[in-house]
C-alpha cells in the first residue's frame, strides 16, 4: 500500500464526481431511452439519412474551408507584431463568443438581398439559394475561429529561429510557411480541424436563422433532431443517439493519432 497521500482519496473527489455526472448522465439517459426495436422506423421518421448526409457533406466542406483559409490567417497572426494584429485576433475571436442566433442574423444582413454582399450580388442577378451553401456559410462562420485560434497557438509556439534559419537559406515567407511552419504544426492543424468539424456538426442557431430548416436542403442533423422532437420523441432520440455514436467514433479514431 502506498504511503503517499493519494489525490483519489481526498475530498476533491466529490466535486469531480459531480462534474462527471453532469457530463455523463444526460448521455446515458439518451441511450437508456433508445428503443432498439423501433430504431430503423424512428430514424426514417426523423429523416435521418437525408439529414446526416447533409451534415456530413456540409461539415466536411466547412472543415476544408477552415483549413484552406484559416491556416494562412493563423500564420499571419502568429508572426505579426503590430498592434493591428492584436485587434485582428480579437475580431477573429468575436464569433466564438457570439450567440449563434446573433451570428445567423448577422449573416442574413450580409448575404440577404439587401445585405452588404447580398445586395451587390442581387443587382448582378445572383441570389444565394436556400441550400447547402448557406449551411456551409453558417457553419464556417462559427467554426473558423476555433480553427484559427487552435492553429495560431501551435504556430506561435514554433521557435522563430526556424523562420530565421529558413530565411537565411533563401526561403521566401511563403516557402517557409509551406515547408517549415505547416509540417511542424500538423498535429495542431489536425486538432484544430477536428474542433472546427465538431463545432460545425453541432451548429444549430446560426444555421436555422440563416438557412432555415428545409428537409433535404438545409436541415442538418441537429435541426432534424429538434424538429423531430415536436413530432415524435422516439425519432428524436434515435437520431440524437446516432449523432452521439458518430461523434464518439470520430473522437476515438483521431485520439490515438493526434488528439490527447
Amino acid at each position, binding site marked *: 500500500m502506498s504511503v503517499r497521500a493519494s489525490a483519489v482519496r481526498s475530498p476533491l473527489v466529490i466535486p469531480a464526481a459531480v462534474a462527471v455526472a453532469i457530463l455523463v448522465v444526460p448521455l446515458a439517459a439518451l441511450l437508456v431511452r433508445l428503443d432498439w426495436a423501433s430504431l430503423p422506423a424512428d430514424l426514417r421518421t426523423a429523416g435521418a439519412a437525408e439529414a446526416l448526409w447533409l451534415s456530413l457533406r456540409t461539415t466536411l466542406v466547412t472543415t476544408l474551408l477552415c483549413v484552406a483559409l484559416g491556416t494562412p490567417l493563423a500564420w499571419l497572426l502568429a508572426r505579426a507584431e503590430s498592434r493591428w494584429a492584436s485587434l485582428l485576433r480579437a475580431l477573429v475571436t468575436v464569433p466564438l463568443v457570439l450567440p449563434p442566433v446573433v451570428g445567423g442574423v448577422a449573416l442574413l444582413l450580409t448575404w440577404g438581398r439587401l445585405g452588404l454582399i447580398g445586395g451587390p450580388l442581387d443587382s448582378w442577378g445572383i441570389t444565394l439559394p436556400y441550400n447547402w451553401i448557406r449551411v456551409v456559410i453558417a457553419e464556417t462562420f462559427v467554426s473558423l475561429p476555433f480553427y484559427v485560434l487552435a492553429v495560431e497557438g501551435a504556430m506561435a509556439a514554433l521557435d522563430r529561429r526556424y523562420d530565421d*534559419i529558413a530565411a*537565411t537559406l*533563401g526561403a521566401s515567407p511563403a516557402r517557409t510557411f509551406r515547408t517549415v511552419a505547416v509540417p511542424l504544426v500538423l498535429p495542431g492543424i489536425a486538432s484544430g480541424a477536428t474542433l472546427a468539424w465538431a463545432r460545425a456538426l453541432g451548429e444549430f442557431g446560426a444555421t436555422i436563422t440563416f438557412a432555415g430548416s428545409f428537409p433535404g436542403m438545409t436541415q442538418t442533423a441537429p435541426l432534424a433532431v429538434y424538429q423531430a422532437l415536436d413530432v415524435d420523441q422516439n425519432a428524436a432520440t434515435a437520431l440524437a443517439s446516432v449523432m452521439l455514436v458518430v461523434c464518439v467514433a470520430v473522437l476515438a479514431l483521431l485520439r490515438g493519432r493526434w488528439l490527447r
Partner: protein
Amino acid sequence: MSLHVTGRATYAPSPRNVTNSPRNVTNTSRNVTSSPRNVTNASRNVTSSPRNVPAHPPSGELSPPERAVLRGGAGGFTLHIDLEVGPGEVLALLGPNGSGKTTLLRTIAGLHPLDGTLTVDGEHWSDRSPQQRSVGLVLAQPLLFPHLSALDNVAYGLRSRGHQRAASRQRAYAELAAVGMESFAAQRPSQLSSGQAARVALARALAPGPKVLLLDEPLATLDPATRSDIRGMLRDRLRGYPGCTILVTHDTLDALTVTDRLCFLEGGRIVATGSPREVVARPTTPYAARMVGLNLLAAEVMDGRVLVNSNEIQTSARIGDGAAWVGIRPSAISLWPAPPHGSPRNLWQLIVDGIELSGQTARVALTGAVDVVAEVTTAAVADLDLRPGAPIWVTVKATEVDVYPKTGGA
C-alpha cells in the same frame, strides 16, 4: 570576398525575439576575480528584461556616445559598429552577454535592421532581405528541421534557391561528407546526437555556398568531449572556406584555436581587436584579460613611474607617460607567509578573497593595494594556510610585470 559593416542597429528585446540559448556554463574558474563579475550580471538583465521597454529606443541622428552604453535593466541599446572581415578570415566576436554580439550577427544576416552600410564582396547588402543576401547561420541549438532527413535539411537552402532536387541532393551529400556525416544522410534529426546535429547544421549553412558564415555560439550546448570534437571539425572545415566567418563565442579555446582575429564588443561598441597571440600576450580590456587568465591593472605612467591606485609598481619595462595597462601572469605571483628579502621586486600585503582549485593548481584571488589572481600549487594552499580573509605577503619580480600603453595593441 570581404565584409565591411558600419553603422548602427538598435536592439530592444521583446519576449518574442529573445533567444534562449543557454550561456556558456563551463569555465567558472575564469571568474576568480570577484569585482568584474558585476559586469556580466548587469548585462545579463538585457536578455531577460521584461517588456516595459519602448519598442524602439530613441534613434534618428547619430547618437551621442552615452546612448551606446548598455542600459542595464531597461534592456535596449544601440550598436555602433565599424567592422571589416577579410576573405577566408575567421573573426571571433567576444564580449559579455548583452554586449551586442548576437544583434550584430542578426544585423548582418538581415534579420535586424541596420542604420548604416553593409558591403560584402563589393555589393551593398543594407537594403537586401535575408533571402537576397548570401549568409549561412548556425546557432547554439542546431535547429534542424525535424521533419526532414539530414540530407534534405542540408539540401533545403539549395532547393530554396531554385536548384533541381537531384542536383541539390548531390551537393548536399558532398556537404555532409565534408563534415563526416554522409552515412547519416537518411536519418531524422531526432535520431542524431547533439554533436552529429551540430555537424549537419554546419553543413546546412555551408551548402548554398554563402559569402558570409555566421556562427552564434555553435558549441555552447555541447558537452565537453563533443565540444572539442566539433571544435576540431569546425577548424578543419573553415580552413577551406573562402568566405568571411564571424564566430560568436564565450569560450577562450574556440577563440584562440579556431579564429584568426579576435574582436571584443562591450555595450554595443568594439573595444578591442587583435590576433589571438596579441590578446593572450597583451589584452587591453578587463574582459579579454579575464578570458585569457591574465591580471590586468589600469595604470598611470608619470615621469617613468608606473602607478596603480597611486601605488608604484616596479617593472623592468619602459614606456612613456600616460595611461597604461599592467599585465601580470598569475603564475608569476609568489605568496609568502612573511616578507621575503632579495632582488628588487614588488611587495604587497594582500588579503585572500577566494580560492579555486583545479587539480594541482589553485587560483587565489587577492585584494588590497592591487586586486590580482595568483596561481600556486594546491600544496601551497595548505602550506601557507590560505583561507578567505587571511593576510598574505605577495611578491612579483619586476621582470614579470609587463606595461603597455592603453591605446593600440589588442
